[in-house]
């Protein structure tokens, strides 16, 4: 057990001036923080929700999860002049996933466990922190969390910064004073549940997903009242329809997802009670359709041989009414998952010309290596092409049935060896979110080329009981690279260019802007700006640690554009960089060590917030 992680944060401003104070900031028009118009938008593209235009108030910047900003003061012509204007260590040697918010000239940073919330007054750059809120989460959560003690960020609404703590609480903090407004219990550590995701606030509901799919948790998403934190609804990812909030509105597109109580009948006896299907990734929202979209994680128990059936609703995209939680449709991506392909990835809402008519699309770059395009009104699968070429567990999807065309020799069975399954459990991409630029029509995907062999058994011992674990061993896929930053042409369902990383996966989120610059980070610590159309690297800066966070951009009090990102390696794959994780055992960390042996030669943990500007 870790001896309490002490929170210390030291300000170490890299530049004397964070943002110049009182230098004639133009008064901004109220409500100018979002925009719906994108200059020079690509033909046949329409945005489904307002875009960030100065502030950054929710995890993805916008409800549609495009992570596109209309800011263009930093652009292809001048991005080469980008410099560090400030940096600050969090003092925490764990994965810094997610990204900061900026609201009303204040930046808000949520740290990994112990999940402190730091407020930085952008108008007082040299001054002390505006405040720090300490939730003091129960340290026992550290021993329960599966894959590092990460946090993926906060949301702002109604004068409150709202986020989740590892020990199963959602907290609402007054954005001005740092005082806790309410605190809600959203899970139970006793059964292995933790929370690492960022909540999304839709109207008067705070929507929260859980973690713990490795521990036999029954996954769920709950909605809390924005004013009080009181629970409004909860939707389980398994079990009877009334507990999965499946009712008369439910109209899935495919037969495979239709039927009564599939969350019970697609499992063996009572096993849905341990059914997994947690939601630790991203939630998106379409204000016009009034639907939220999210994907669910892997099913439990771990051994697929022990749970014949589709195991609904694991590895499934849900469309739900945010007011009631009632499901509108569901699409199970990986029926009877045997490879740990969680599908908690982002679901990006955008309207595009598709085969001659405008359709409301949902873009889901899948853990399983396929780029899925669905109709978000109906759940129909419109396209499924491999974005990571090594993907071999299935040849494609049958668009008529919505089912993957699987290679049976790539199924896993406990006690039997299955070699070279691509992608590995860590996916063709992980939870790290892609970004869609409406100006280029391209989706920028942070991807992995990692494969695994799966089989044999090794002895394990837990709570006084000997058990047998699978020997999962990951390794870089074929082609001489493990990371790939892919620009994907959505309309034509094919890649247009990519940037390959020889050794390490790309494990950071992506930001695209109206300046036609795309930002992302690498696991060896480079923060990069890439030309959104041509894919050439325009600028890069080596930060102090590997980047597993999500870049964001905002307008400072001086009217200038800034870009911020966390540096601080960690998370499932990144944890191999930690000094206390040995790189000797390929099977350690659920098999991920085999693919990440070299990371210690490139980076070490330690969280730092970086702000870049001109």
């Amino acid at each position: 057990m870790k001896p309490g992680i002490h929170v210390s944060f030291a300000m170490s401003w890299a530049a004397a001036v964070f943002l110049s104070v009182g230098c004639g900031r133009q008064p901004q028009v109220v409500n100018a923080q979002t925009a719906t118009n994108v200059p020079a938008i690509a033909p046949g593209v329409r945005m489904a929700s307002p875009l960030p235009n100065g502030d950054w108030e929710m995890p993805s910047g916008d409800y549609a999860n495009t992570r596109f900003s209309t800011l263009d003061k930093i652009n292809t012509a001048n991005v080469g002049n980008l410099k560090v204007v400030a940096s600050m260590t969090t003092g925490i040697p764990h994965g810094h996933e997610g990204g900061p918010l900026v609201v009303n000239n204040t930046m808000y940073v949520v740290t990994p466990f112990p999940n402190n919330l730091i407020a930085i007054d952008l108008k007082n750059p040299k001054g002390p922190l505006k405040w720090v809120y300490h939730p003091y989460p129960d340290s026992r959560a550290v021993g329960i969390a599966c894959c590092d003690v990460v946090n993926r960020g906060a949301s702002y609404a109604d004068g409150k910064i709202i986020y989740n703590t590892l020990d199963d609480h959602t907290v609402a903090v007054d954005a001005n004073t740092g005082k806790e407004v309410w605190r809600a219990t959203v899970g139970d550590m006793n059964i292995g549940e933790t929370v690492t995701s960022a909540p999304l606030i839709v109207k008067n509901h705070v929507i929260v997903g859980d973690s713990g799919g490795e521990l036999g948790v029954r996954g769920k998403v709950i909605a809390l009242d924005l004013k009080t934190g009181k629970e409004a609804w909860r939707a389980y990812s398994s079990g009877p329809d009334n507990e999965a909030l499946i009712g008369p509105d439910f109209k899935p597109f495919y037969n495979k997802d239709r039927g009564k109580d599939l969350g019970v009948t697609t499992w063996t006896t009572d096993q849905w009670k341990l059914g997994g299907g947690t939601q630790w990734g991203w939630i998106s929202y379409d204000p016009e359709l009034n639907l939220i979209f999210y994907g669910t994680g892997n099913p439990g128990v771990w051994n697929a041989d022990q749970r014949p059936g589709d195991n609904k609703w694991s590895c499934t995209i849900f469309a739900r009414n945010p007011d009631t939680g009632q499901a509108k449709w569901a699409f199970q991506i990986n029926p009877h998952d045997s490879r740990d392909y969680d599908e908690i990835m982002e679901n990006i809402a955008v309207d595009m010309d598709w085969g001659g008519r405008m359709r409301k699309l949902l873009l889901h770059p899948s853990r399983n290596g396929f780029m899925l395009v669905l109709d978000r009104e109906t759940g129909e699968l419109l396209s499924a092409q491999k974005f990571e070429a090594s993907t071999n567990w299935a040849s494609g999807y049958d668009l008529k049935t919505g089912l993957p065309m699987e290679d049976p020799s790539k199924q896993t069975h406990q006690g039997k060896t299955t070699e070279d399954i691509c992608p590995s459990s860590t996916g063709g991409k992980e939870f790290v979110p892609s970004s869609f630029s409406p100006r280029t029509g391209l989706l920028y995907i942070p991807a992995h080329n990692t494969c695994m062999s799966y089989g044999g058994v090794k002895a394990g011992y837990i709570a006084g009981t000997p058990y047998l674990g699978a020997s999962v061993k990951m390794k870089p896929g074929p082609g001489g690279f493990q990371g790939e930053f892919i620009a994907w042409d959505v309309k034509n369902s094919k890649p247009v260019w990519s940037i390959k990383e020889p050794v390490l996966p790309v494990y950071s989120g992506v930001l695209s802007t109206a300046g036609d610059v795309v930002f992302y980070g690498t696991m060896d610590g480079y923060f990069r700006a890439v030309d959104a159309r041509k894919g050439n690297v325009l600028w890069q800066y080596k930060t102090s640690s590997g980047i597993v966070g999500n870049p964001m951009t905002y307008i400072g009090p001086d009217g200038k554009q800034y870009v911020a990102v966390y540096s601080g390696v960690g998370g499932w794959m990144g944890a191999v960089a930690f000094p206390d994780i040995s790189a000797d055992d390929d099977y350690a960390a659920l098999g991920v060590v085999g693919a990440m042996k070299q990371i210690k030669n490139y980076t070490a943990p330690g969280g730092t917030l970086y702000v870049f500007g001109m």
Partner: protein
Amino acid sequence: MSSVCSTIVAVCTCLGLATAADLHVCSDPDNLPYSNRQQQGFENQLAAMTARDLGRTVKYVWIPQRGPFFKALQQGACDMVMGVPTDFPAALTTQPYYRSTYVFASLRSKHLNIRSFDDKRLKTLRIGLQIVAEGDGDVPPAQALAHRGIVSNISWFRLNRNFLGAHRPASLLDAVEKGDIDVAIVWGPIAGSYARTASAPLALTPVSPQAEGDTPFAFNISMGVRPGDTNLKAALNSMIRGRRDEIRRLLDQFGVPEAPANR
């Protein structure tokens, strides 16, 4: 000659103090029948016996037996842990001090008398198994049953590692007693200690076969020390050899079933 005596006593006392170094044992604070903070488990008694033999004093480092448990040993938070499978990779293991087996546990009044995974009745009886709450494994009987196509009549029971409150490792056996399931397949020490105090008599029979392919159903259990700590390992080995009968009596008291030696 009292002065000589007192000198000798003083010397002895000094030596005694010098050798009475603490023996730090990582132990689960709430994991009966193995250990708990009140030191009521058989591993607690074994730790006391071990420390006496080594002329040291037990100092417990209480850590729930989960992921960080063995990391704590490796990082030096403690000198040893009490019960691990022999050759378990996360520790340097001593020679085994007992060998136990998964058992079929049912109500004696049902007269099921199941001895083998090949018993046809297992296809229809209600079977209970433990889920290993660690994400990457199964109890070995799960694999034996899966190979025989026995899946739909299994109920899964969490090991119920309860981090904050009461610890109920035996919910599976509660279900046998209440008749919710017909037979549980459970690790011997847990079943044996539960059966001693069960309100209805339970029949426990070792599973057969005792291994299948790569899958063992019986395990040698050792003490574990830090990788590289060969001195402590040697001292523990000699203690285990010297006190074999005493250790067996202790395990019998707790109802730990013995499995035949590994061939």
